[in-house]
């Protein structure tokens, strides 16, 4: 079916506000009487707090309040597992943990006051390395993690937060069948999401005791629930106001400083703003988990995978609080199976407590780590088998009716088509243009997110349509997609549909933004609401005897009778496991043999997608995710030394710049079978995960150096080449 608006590359609905500087992010919110909160953070990875003296801080002119744990209720917070205090109480567990908080009218004065707080610590033995954390006798980060609300039951060691397991067939029997078995271990680095808006929030308490919140948080309703718990207030006392979010990438779903801002507001009677410095983001945000992943694969004589076992260790840091999934784990672990049919599979993933920065969700949580390991492993096996890596993959790709690691049955599998399209577009089989140039591929797939969302569609007497939602704008272009859906259904122009942002007062619940869900859940909510409104309009038109496109006249007629033409829909998407989206990527790199420097000469990304609602936004998601993947592959790393982060600025943690991006070819295989509106799927997390292994495989192809730990720095390649010279 041809669409009028769906599939058109329409510019951004929120564009004018954002390009003109008018958009008000939470850090821009100003309310009368506003003051600033600043936190004092622990300088030690693990210590007992012997004494805190705030006398000098309180005496500083301009300081309005100084709070420590003893001034606050002993509440523990979290997104799923509640193990984190508002301020450290008796004990600090990572460098950067908040110990006290100060309020002042001038942010610099508040900051100054934090340096006047005297804290006496007594060192405790710290455990930094995740492998060391799980051995007998290791220092314990939490005395009794099982007692925390939301804690998973299985706990093989006191420092294990969670265990996630995926099983197919009989893995031991599978390995007995195998002609050859391969085992490799990979490591990935600690990495920040890299959003350029540090966490910011404003809390104001109205005269009637209502708590008003503006926050860089993508799940307003969940935030309200979590705040209700953290502040011990009924939910109806809290209102979360939606603001645009300056980049999320998985990182903007927690309470962060909001409870502290509330308590400062409570004791001072003034609205409080707390904005993290970027150094604080890097020492105490909720970055991507570092990992240690071992894959073992058994292959038959004809190159079929018959068994695989995967063991993943994710270094979760001092608290589990930032992980939102019920498993308190990273779903990306399931990608240990790759895009392959593996009859006998066992994946075991452990999130481990250490005295490091607590980690959270980052775009495709767990996947860039696991896909790097898994797809590097695939190439290493292919090389050992003397098979072309493409051919080895071809023999093992998922097909219709196969099972994923999580047990889902797959339909509409286009893994093969996606791979072949990538090979063709990248000229994978063509002769290479010179020495020290290599090509590498990697594949992945990603589910379409689920959740529940509200939409209200209203026809105005001017014939214009308003879509009312409570989904914050994290920058993905979701609002534009929803506007397109409504315009398409109602047959109106894009400019005639506007978005009206609700607050948490306006709906009962909503799962918000995240997990590649909004086009699906929001899109379907908007679609069904618009369909209902359309039916109303048609009925009214028939009654009035006017054409159904005389929208203004129809709305005015209803208004004269005191009625508003409005329809709402609450869409609750259940897990849709049967359809996923495949990605195949090919990197062509050049390696400088004298320095080890890797240059990505060209990059091809191929995506099996559903109906593309907005090609411009769709492509933007692919490009943005891909360059994040490039940074993860080659540049970005938060470095730590004994739990101390030594890269505390964006001058040291290098995000890719405009000069670091490779020439890009994108291939879109459109196949309208998704569960989203107009059979859309999801794209936001499709392009990030395969980039690093594609580059690692290309580097190995170019120079024979196999890098097993990210990022692939020039130095690592250089010394790998030296090692090869020494032992060819």
């Amino acid at each position, binding site marked *: 079916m041809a669409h009028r608006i769906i599939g058109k590359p329409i510019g951004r609905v929120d564009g004018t506000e954002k390009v003109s500087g008018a958009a008000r992010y939470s850090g821009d919110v100003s309310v009368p009487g506003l003051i600033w909160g600043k936190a004092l953070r622990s300088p030690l990875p693990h210590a007992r707090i012997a004494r805190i003296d705030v006398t000098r801080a309180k005496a500083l002119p301009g300081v309005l309040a100084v709070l420590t744990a003893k001034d606050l209720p002993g509440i523990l917070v979290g997104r799923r597992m509640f193990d984190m205090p508002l301020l450290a109480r008796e004990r600090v567990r990572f460098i950067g943990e908040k110990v006290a908080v100060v309020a002042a009218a001038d942010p*610099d004065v508040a*900051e*100054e006051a934090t*340096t006047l707080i005297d804290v006496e610590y007594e060192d405790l033995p710290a455990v930094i390395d995740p492998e060391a954390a799980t051995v007998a006798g290791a220092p314990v980060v939490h005395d009794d993690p099982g007692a925390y609300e939301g804690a998973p039951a299985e706990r093989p060691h006191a420092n294990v937060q969670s265990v996630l397991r995926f099983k197919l067939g009989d893995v031991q029997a599978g390995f007995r069948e195998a002609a050859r078995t391969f085992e490799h271990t990979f490591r990935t680095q600690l990495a920040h999401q890299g959003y350029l808006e540090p966490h910011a929030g404003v809390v104001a308490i109205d005269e009637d005791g209502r708590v008003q919140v503006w926050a860089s948080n993508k799940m307003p309703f969940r935030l309200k629930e979590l705040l209700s718990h953290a502040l011990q207030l009924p939910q109806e006392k809290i209102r979360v106001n939606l603001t645009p979010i300056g980049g999320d990438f998985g990182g903007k779903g927690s309470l962060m400083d909001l409870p502290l801002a509330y308590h400062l507001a409570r004791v001072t009677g003034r609205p409080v703003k707390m904005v993290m410095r970027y*150094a604080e983001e890097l020492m105490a945000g909720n970055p991507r988990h570092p990992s240690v992943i071992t894959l073992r694969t058994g292959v038959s004589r004809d190159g079929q995978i018959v068994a695989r076992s995967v063991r993943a260790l994710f270094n979760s840091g001092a608290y589990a609080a930032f992980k939102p999934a019920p498993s308190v784990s990273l779903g990306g672990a399931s990608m240990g199976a790759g895009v392959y049919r593996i009859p006998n599979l066992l994946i075991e993933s452990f999130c481990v407590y250490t005295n490091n920065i607590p980690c959270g969700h980052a775009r495709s949580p767990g996947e860039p780590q696991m896909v790097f390991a898994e797809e590097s492993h695939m190439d290493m096996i292919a090389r050992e088998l003397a098979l072309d890596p493409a051919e080895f993959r071809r023999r093992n790709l998922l097909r219709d009716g196969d099972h994923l690691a999580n047990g889902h049955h797959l339909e509409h599998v286009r893994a093969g088509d996606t791979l072949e399209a990538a090979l063709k577009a990248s000229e994978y089989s063509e002769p290479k243009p010179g020495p020290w140039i290599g090509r590498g591929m990697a594949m992945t797939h990603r589910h379409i997110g689920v959740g529940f969302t509200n939409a209200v569609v209203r026809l105005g007497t001017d014939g214009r349509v308003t879509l009312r939602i409570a989904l914050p704008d994290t920058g993905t272009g979701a609002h534009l997609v929803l506007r397109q859906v409504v315009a398409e259904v109602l047959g109106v122009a894009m400019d005639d549909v506007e978005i009206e942002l609700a607050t948490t007062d306006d709906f009962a619940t909503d799962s918000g933004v995240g997990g590649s869900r909004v086009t699906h859940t929001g899109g379907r909510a908007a679609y069904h609401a618009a369909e209902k409104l359309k039916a109303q309009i048609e009925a009214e038109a028939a009654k009035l005897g006017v054409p159904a496109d005389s929208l203004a006249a129809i709305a005015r007629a209803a208004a004269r009778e005191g009625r508003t033409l409005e329809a709402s829909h609450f869409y609750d998407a259940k897990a849709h496991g049967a359809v996923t989206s495949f990605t195949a990527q090919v990197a062509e790199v050049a390696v400088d043999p*004298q*320095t*080890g*420097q890797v240059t990505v000469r060209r990059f091809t990304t191929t995506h099996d997608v559903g109906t593309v609602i907005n090609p411009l936004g769709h492509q933007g998601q692919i490009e943005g995710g891909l360059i994040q993947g490039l940074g993860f592959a*080659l*540049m970005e*790393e938060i*470095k730590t030394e004994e739990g101390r982060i*030594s*890269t505390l600025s964006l*001058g*040291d943690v*290098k*995000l*890719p*710049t*405009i*000069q*670091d991006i490779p020439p890009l070819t994108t291939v879109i295989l459109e196949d309208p079978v998704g569960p989203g509106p107009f059979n859309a799927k999801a794209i936001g997390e499709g392009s990030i995960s395969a980039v690093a292994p594609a580059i690692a495989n290309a580097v190995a192809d170019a120079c024979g150096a196999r890098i097993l730990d990210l990022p692939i*720095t*020039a*130095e690592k390649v*250089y*010394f790998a080449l030296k090692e090869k010279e020494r032992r060819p």
Partner: protein
Amino acid sequence: MRAFEYAAPRTLDEALAVLREHGDEARVIAGGTALVTMMRQRLVSPGYLVSLRDIRGLDRIEADNGGIRIGALATHRDVETSPLVRERLPVLAETFRRVASVRIRNMATVGGALAHADPNQDPPVTLIALGARVEICGTDGRRALPVEEFFRDYYESALEPGEVVIGVVVPQLAPASGAAYVKFLPRTADDYATVAVAATVSVDPDGERCRAARIALGSVGVTPIRARGAEGLLAGQRFGAELLRGAGEAVKGAVDPLSDHRGSAAYKREMAGVMVGRALTRAWDAALVSARGTR
């Protein structure tokens, strides 16, 4: 940031007087890119800030005895885009162009960057290779010293209390000479160098032997350094892979890098050897072009 007094005198004498009056508590600010960043991090909290921005004439870039004199308040962008610099010493314009971003180059001044004495900066490397001198002024008068002697330790220069950098004088390259700056950036394009090398090479009239060379390196220790040992190996020698290898080895022995996010000390040492070879090759090629032009 902590509170401080701020003065923006209009003359150098006035600035020097304020500096003397406030002694240790006072700091000089020009572009402020480094100082304000550290003040925001609260690593540095001066009680008195003396801005040089309103002093006239300190930002001039002018011809000087066949070379170029650059006023301390000239910004990096001024140097990069100066027609005089581009014509007479393109390597210097090219070096300044490699600093951070256009925006930072608009702010950062030549004098401020020298006084900051960060061994990871680009300009000092080329300035040393070109044989430039820093002009310093204090209440007791003026003095000048070679750039290579100006840097004393990590972020420490030869500036005495109460002194300010007022300019830098860069001599013209000798005839039949070439210069090159090589900045090794294995991570992102806006990074500090992992290793940086500047070299000048003069060729004999026959165009086969190296008459003289100067080599300087950045990001290889607590100060930018001049690699005199390697320079000595080159004088009078025939240019070729052998000679470059020798120079590279000599440089590797001369550097003392710090391990940091841009590479381990061992890697930087290796790269110093590689980059010296590259810089010399480019300088050599440029020298040959120059020699042909003079013949």
